[in-house]
C-alpha cells in the first residue's frame, strides 16, 4: 500500500512562526529590546517547527504498510479480520497514529464510522510503531452482502512528534487486496433433480468417446485397431486376434442460465439476490453429487466469450469457482434481452441434458426454450419457490 504525505500546518504553529517573523522584523527596523524569555520561547518554537518538518519529510520514507491477506473469502454473515502490518524501518517512531480505512460495504467493520457516503464502510484504529519495529493491526468485520469488497481509501493521521497537531498520509494508487463475500445458501426444493445419478434416471447423451475401463465384449481384430485394445485372453481362446469393445461414455450436465434483466426494464429483477442464494444452494448439491454444471448469464463481457460464463466443471473446486463467480456478478451492468441471449447460447454452446433458467418467461423466451427442448434438453425454472420443470404457456411463469 503506497501513501503520500499531505501536510497541513497547524494554526498554533502558524501563529508562532508569524509572531517570530514579526518580532524579527521589528528588531531589524526598530531595534527593540526583547525579553530573553520571549526570545528563548520563540527559538524553542522555531526549533520544534524545524524538527517537525524533518519528522514529516523523513518519517514516511521508511514506512511500509501491507495488507497481510491479499485475498479473503467468506460467506455472508461470517466474521473476519483484516490484518494490516505497519513496518517502520527507519529511526522515527509513530506515536498514537490513527489509521482510517474505507471499503465497499459488502463488508461492515465492527466499529463503523459513518462517512456519509452510500455503499462505503469506514473505521479507524489507533496504533504505535517504534523505530525499526513493526506492528500488526487487526480490524474485525462481518460479511454483509454478496460481492467483492475492496479498500477504496486509507489515510493515516500522524501526530507531529514535537506537538502542534497532526499531519496526514493518504493512500495513493490501488490496493492489491479483496474480500470475496459469497452469497448465502438458500435451501430450495429441487426434488425432480435430486435423483441419484443411476443409468436411466437421467437423460443420457452418448458421447463420441468410449470408456476404456468398461468393456462390453470383443469383436474381430481390424488392421487399424490399437494393439492396446487387443483382448489377449479372448484372442488365445478363439485362436485369432480379438479387439475389445467399450461402453460409450455418458454425460449428465446442468446448464444454469441467469437472467439479470427484469421483464419491465433494464434493471435487475427484484429478487435477484434470492436467486443467487438459491443457485449457491443447488450448485452445492451438484458439487456434492459430482454432477458437472456450467453457468452463463446475460451480462455482457468484452472478451471473446461475449457473456459472463463459468466453464463446465464439477466437485468442490468448481463450487469454489462458482461462489466466486456469483460474488463477482454485478447486477447493475450491461445486459441483453434474455431471449436474444438464449438464442446465442443455443447456437454457440453444447446443450446438455438439463437446462435451468432463472426469471420470468414471456412468449419470446418460451419460444426459445422450446428450441432447447427440441434439442433434447429438459428445461427447469428456478424462481423464489425453487426449481421445477418448466411448463410452457406461463404455467409456471412466476415472477422473480
Amino acid at each position, binding site marked *: 500500500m503506497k501513501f503520500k504525505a499531505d501536510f497541513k500546518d497547524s494554526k498554533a504553529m502558524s501563529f508562532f512562526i508569524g509572531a517570530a517573523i514579526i518580532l524579527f522584523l521589528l528588531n531589524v527596523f526598530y531595534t527593540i529590546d526583547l525579553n530573553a524569555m520571549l526570545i528563548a520561547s520563540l527559538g524553542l518554537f522555531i526549533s520544534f517547527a524545524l524538527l517537525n518538518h524533518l519528522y514529516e519529510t523523513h518519517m514516511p520514507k521508511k514506512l511500509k504498510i501491507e495488507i497481510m491477506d491479499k485475498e479473503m473469502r467468506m460467506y455472508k454473515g461470517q466474521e473476519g479480520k483484516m490484518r494490516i502490518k505497519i513496518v517502520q524501518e527507519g529511526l522515527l517512531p509513530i506515536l498514537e497514529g490513527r489509521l482510517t480505512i474505507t471499503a465497499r460495504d459488502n463488508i461492515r467493520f465492527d466499529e463503523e464510522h459513518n462517512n456519509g457516503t452510500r455503499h462505503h464502510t469506514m473505521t479507524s484504529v489507533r496504533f504505535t510503531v517504534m523505530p525499526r519495529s513493526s506492528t500488526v493491526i487487526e480490524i474485525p468485520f462481518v460479511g454483509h452482502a454478496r460481492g467483492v469488497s475492496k479498500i477504496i481509501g486509507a489515510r493515516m493521521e500522524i501526530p507531529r512528534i514535537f506537538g502542534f497537531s497532526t499531519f496526514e498520509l493518504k493512500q495513493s494508487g490501488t490496493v492489491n487486496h479483496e474480500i470475496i463475500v459469497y452469497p448465502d445458501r438458500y435451501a430450495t426444493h429441487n426434488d425432480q433433480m435430486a435423483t441419484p445419478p443411476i443409468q436411466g434416471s437421467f437423460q443420457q447423451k452418448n458421447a463420441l468417446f468410449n470408456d476404456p475401463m468398461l468393456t462390453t465384449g470383443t469383436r474381430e481384430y481390424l488392421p487399424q485397431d490399437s494393439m492396446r485394445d487387443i483382448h489377449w485372453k479372448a484372442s*488365445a481362446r478363439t485362436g485369432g486376434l480379438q479387439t475389445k469393445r467399450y461402453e460409450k461414455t455418458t454425460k449428465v450436465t446442468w446448464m444454469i442460465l441467469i437472467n439479470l434483466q427484469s421483464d419491465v426494464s433494464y434493471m435487475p429483477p427484484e429478487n435477484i439476490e434470492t436467486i443467487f442464494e438459491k443457485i449457491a444452494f443447488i450448485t452445492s448439491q451438484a458439487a456434492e453429487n459430482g454432477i458437472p454444471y456450467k453457468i452463463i448469464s446475460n451480462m455482457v463481457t468484452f472478451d471473446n466469450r461475449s457473456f459472463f460464463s463459468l466453464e463446465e466443471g464439477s466437485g468442490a473446486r468448481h463450487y469454489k469457482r462458482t461462489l466466486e463467480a456469483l460474488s463477482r456478478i454485478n447486477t447493475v451492468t450491461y445486459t441483453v434481452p434474455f431471449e436474444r441471449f438464449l438464442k446465442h447460447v443455443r447456437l454457440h454452446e453444447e446443450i446438455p441434458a438439463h437446462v435451468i433458467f432463472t426469471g420470468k418467461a414471456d412468449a419470446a423466451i418460451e419460444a426459445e426454450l422450446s428450441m432447447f427442448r427440441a434439442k433434447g434438453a429438459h428445461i427447469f425454472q428456478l424462481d423464489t419457490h425453487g426449481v421445477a420443470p418448466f411448463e410452457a404457456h406461463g404455467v409456471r411463469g412466476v415472477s422473480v
Partner: protein
Amino acid sequence: MNIKEKLEAFKKEVGKVMVGQEEIAELIFVSLLQRGHILFESVPGTGKTMLSKTVARAVGGTFKRIQFTPDILPSDITGLNIYNPKTQEFDLRIGPVDTNILLADEINRATPRTQSALLEVMGEKQVTIDGERISIEEPFIVLATQNPIESSQGNFDLPEAQLDRFLMKIDLGYPSREEEKMMLGLHGHTHPLDAVTPIFTKDEIVALQDELSGVEVNGTIQDYILDLIHSTREHEYVEIGVSPRGTLALVQAAKGVALLRGRDYVIPEDIKYIAPFVISHRLVLNIEGSTLTTPAIIAQEIIETLEVPVEYGVARNEV
C-alpha cells in the same frame, strides 16, 4: 562421504539446473533418505519436469518416464500379458514401473482409475499382473508432477489414497527476480542437464536409510506429533485428516531433517519445518472448507497454533 557432504553434493548437482532451489533440494534429499515418493506441484513453466529429471540423474540407478495423458490405461503403467501366437503362450511385459526412479509427468492428466494403477507399486514395491506378483527392485521412487487444478478441463484430481502415498508435496513457486536473471545466464548453448552427474548409487540410498534408524524421537515429541495429527482430524473445515500412514511419514521425515542438521534426536523445529510438506496434501477439506481456504493454509494454521513442547522436555541434557 558422510550424509552432510552428500547433501552438499546433491545441492550442487541440482543447482547446475535449478537456480535458488536449495531448500527444495534439501526437502528432496530428506525424501530420498526415506525412499519416499515426491509430488511436485506448481503452475506451468516453473521447472517441475526439469527438476524431476535432474533428481533422477543425480540419484543414479535406472530411470523411466511416463507421460500421463487422458487415454493412458492401467496396463500401460503396470504391464500386461501378451499372447504370443507362435509359442501359443502369454509373455509378461512389465510396464515402466520396473525401474529405480519413475517420473510420472503430469500425473493428473490421466483418469483416477489409471492413476490408481500406481497404488500397489508405490505402497508395496510390487505389481500384480493377472494374479502374478512381481517385486520391483529397491529403491523405487516416484517423482510425479502436476499442475494446480485451476481448470477442470483435461485434469483429474488424484485420489486421496494416491496422494497419501506421496511422502511430500512440494510447491516450486516462482523464482525471485535475481534467480530468474541467473537462470537466463545458465541456460545458454548447452543443456544444463547434461552437466548433472550421479552422486548416489542405488545401494547407497538403501544404506542411508540405516542411518535414520539411529535418530531418536522421544515421548514428548511423539505426543507433539500426535497432537498435530489429531488437530488435522478435528478441524472444522477438514473432512479427512492425516492418516496413520501420514503420522509415520511425518516422524520419518522429521528424523531425516534432524540427521541433516547434525543431530541424533528430533526437536519440535524439525517437525514444524517439515510438517507443511508432509501433511497438507493429506488433508481433504469439506465443501465449506474448500470454498474458504486451502489445505496448505489450514496445515500452517494448525502448526502455528499448536502448543510446542518446552525445551527441557525435548533436548536431552539441555534446559
